[in-house]
């Protein structure tokens, strides 16, 4: 079971020897916890998500999801969009803000911190299509036509599907689910976890990662001025926090365990490419 805010708060106060909250209040611990959680997600990019950035006809700029930290990849019609800077767009097309057509590039440069510009500007608003419902009774159990996310649990009713909008707050879905066509913009990104707004809010990272957030809370608590200050122990927990973040980053990037590197070689794999390799500049503007 994922750990909750209350569980971690209890652990922190227990380790501080202050379950009565004489020195450190629950609010202080919760604030540090949220801070540590946000920082961990930002530094390590541990949480990965995909969502649609629905095309709207004639609209060039789009607001990104609030939990988005960094885009890893964007696609349109499942083809990767090339990220460009606005000057590069200007060089390519002086009217890039209004030219409509298939989206091939995107820019996050100068239109606002959380604004993505599509080039070209979509000429059609995305029209969601109805997914087929199999059968006329029972509850839907699998959604692989709608999402790549696995079904969580083996009983009950589905309550949410990542990337899809839930209409209403109660009842059973009666109409066919609608899905986005591929001819839509999709972004893949690292994100922050859901805000720890209640005692029962669960962390989205595994328990062994939550341990690192606990170190962050202990560091902050022991560092601040007051009767409980212990700078040596605070420095130790700070080091454990930093080490935990670095190890997590290393684990996320250590995905090429099966690759064999060769000193002095190109680092390419020894297997033959499955298909012919196009020239490096195929389909791109070359200066």
């Amino acid at each position, binding site marked *: 079971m994922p750990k909750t805010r209350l569980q971690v708060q209890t652990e922190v106060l227990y380790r501080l020897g202050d379950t009565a909250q004489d020195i450190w209040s629950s609010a202080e611990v919760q604030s540090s916890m949220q801070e540590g959680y946000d920082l961990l997600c930002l530094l390590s990019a541990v949480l990965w998500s995909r969502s649609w950035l629905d095309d709207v006809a004639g609209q060039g700029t789009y607001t990104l999801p609030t939990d988005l930290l960094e885009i890893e990849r964007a696609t349109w019609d499942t083809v990767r969009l090339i990220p460009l800077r606005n000057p590069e767009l200007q060089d390519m097309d002086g009217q890039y803000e209004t030219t409509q057509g298939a989206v091939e590039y995107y820019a996050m440069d100068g239109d606002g911190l959380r604004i993505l510009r599509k080039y070209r500007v979509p000429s059609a608003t995305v029209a969601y299509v109805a997914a087929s419902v199999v059968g006329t009774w029972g509850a839907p159990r699998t959604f692989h036509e709608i999402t790549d996310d696995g079904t969580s649990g083996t009983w009950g009713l589905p309550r949410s599907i990542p990337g899809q909008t839930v209409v209403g707050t109660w009842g059973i879905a009666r109409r066919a689910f609608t899905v986005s066509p591929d001819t839509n913009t999709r972004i893949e990104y690292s994100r922050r976890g859901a805000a720890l707004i209640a005692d029962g809010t669960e962390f989205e990272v595994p328990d062994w990662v939550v341990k690192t957030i606990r170190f962050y809370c202990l560091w902050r608590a022991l560092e601040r001025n007051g009767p409980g200050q212990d700078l040596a122990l605070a420095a130790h927990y700070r080091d454990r926090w930093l080490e935990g973040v670095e190890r997590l980053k290393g684990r996320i990037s250590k995905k090429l365990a*099966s690759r064999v590197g060769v000193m002095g070689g190109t680092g390419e794999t020894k297997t033959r490419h499955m298909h012919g*390799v196009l020239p490096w500049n195929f389909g791109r503007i070359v200066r």
Partner: protein
Amino acid sequence: MNLSELEAAVFRGLDESQTSPVYWSQTDVDAALNEGVECLAEASEYNELSETLGLTAARTYYNLKALLTVADRFLRVTRIWNPVASRWMEIVTIRELDEETYARWERTPGEPQNAIIRGLWWLGIFPRPTASTGTLTVYFAALPVPLALPTDTPGFPQEWHRGIVHYALYDLLAQSGETAKAIEHFKHFLEYQAGLVAYVKQRMRKDRVGVIGA
């Protein structure tokens, strides 16, 4: 050392009676010991497992945290075997798929040959299967199940079990504000951790002859 022996070592180190402890409970000691095992497992990745993953038609991404029985204890994938194609899947980066295969590789059907890892636990495959009948054998590192019974033993050699005791002593002494002693025990723990990491990574060290460039 089994859990019972580890507990006894910790209580001795705390100079506390195990039968009628005053300051530290059995629960405190067990929690600290299990966290020590977890830290050692995380650093060394000694717990190597494999499971069969069922493929779903037209699905590219699989949430390993939800689909593998180890769930939250999953650490990372080490290699993947496709029994239908009888080949090891090549773990690549998303950039390689975008630039060295098809532009629409996400929709390309076929027998999976390449794998990518997104985030910490999302496994992507290319090409994507056309039927929900195939499987993959996923080899991965995971945290062990926590020690619970008195006879439970950590899954790595006993030469490094003392490291768990040092971690527990560090954790408990830190809670009681004995910082200097705690940090001293943590340093000893780090030595054991480094030893275990080296042992796990260099298991064939004596017999294997390494060649630079091979």
